[in-house]
């Protein structure tokens, strides 16, 4: 058993466990089984809805707040998807989706778009490589 473990880079316990499964159920029992434990509460639909609403103004989905918080998201998604989770679960889901809590920055996009000849960050131009004299005052 120890020799096999060294060859397949697994522990002796693992080799013994797989061998026992083979003896009990044959080749069909060998592939890894689904990990035991409770199924996750959140569903793919819940995650998709979370990633959809996080980019929206909360007022547009009937939440009377200017900002999303994890608690607000949990309540709003519970009403929409019937999946009730805590604020901490929302936080973990956002972190898993590469979201962080960060300060926003200003834009004058709407006002600037009303002016002819405007070019700024909205068009993807970052004005890198140009001297300070060429950079717009308000990107």
């Amino acid at each position, binding site marked *: 058993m120890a020799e096999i473990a060294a060859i397949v880079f697994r522990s002796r316990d693992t080799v013994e466990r797989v061998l026992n499964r083979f003896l009990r159920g044959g080749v069909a029992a060998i592939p890894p089984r689904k990990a035991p434990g409770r199924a996750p509460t959140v569903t793919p639909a819940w995650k998709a809805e979370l990633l959809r609403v996080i980019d929206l*103004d909360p007022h547009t989905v009937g939440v*009377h707040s200017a*900002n999303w918080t*994890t608690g607000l998201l949990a309540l709003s998604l519970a009403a929409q998807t019937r999946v009730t989770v805590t604020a901490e679960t929302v936080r973990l889901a956002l972190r898993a989706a590469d979201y962080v809590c*960060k300060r*926003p*920055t*200003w834009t004058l996009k709407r*006002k600037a778009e009303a002016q002819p000849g405007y070019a700024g960050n909205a068009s993807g131009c970052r004005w890198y490589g140009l001297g300070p004299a060429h950079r717009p005052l308000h990107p």
Partner: protein
Amino acid sequence: MTELVEADLLDDVPPDVEELLPLLPHAAVYLQDEVQFAFHPTLTRVWCRKGRRGQRLVEAPGANDKVYGFGLVDGCDGWFDGRFAPGRTADVFCAQVRAAVARSRPRGRLAIVIVDNLHTHTPAGSKLVRQMLAELQDHLRIIYTPADDPDANRIEWLWRWSRREVTHNHQRPTFAALREDMYAHFQTLREHANLVLRQIGSPFAEQGPAAQPLAYAA
């Protein structure tokens, strides 16, 4: 007094505390303050994607219209009186304090109102306040907090909720829409007295799970 304050701190106790303590059993204590709601959003951290490209953009409106909200809270039962005005003027302040007195008088209670030192709150700075104090001297006491000490008036804590719900990172395209949010928010404060008490850290707030956890979300 010696039961409430450590002996070495007795010298720091304001002189009027001795006089005010016996009034408390027959008084309603109100906290009053103003908050500025401006069209130019206040910024705070918000959920956004990692990296610079993920940073959210908040529209700067250019013209910074503003309005002032006047708030008055009963520190014991969470009753809230909210008003709006274009400036922090004495007429609105006096109307609000008179509303507190009108509420307390039928109950046989003295109205003690804790306010900051804004000149329109003081008899020295406002004729209206002088008149009001003279008229209601048997039913009203105004307590001024020390200068530059916002922690002395717990209603300041309430505005944190207002900022989060109304002004932080707001995306309202017009000031009229933002104004609607302000009215709705003050209405929420009127309807959720216990949440108001919890927000200002009142010892009279009912503890336990929040009936309306929206305001307390992280």
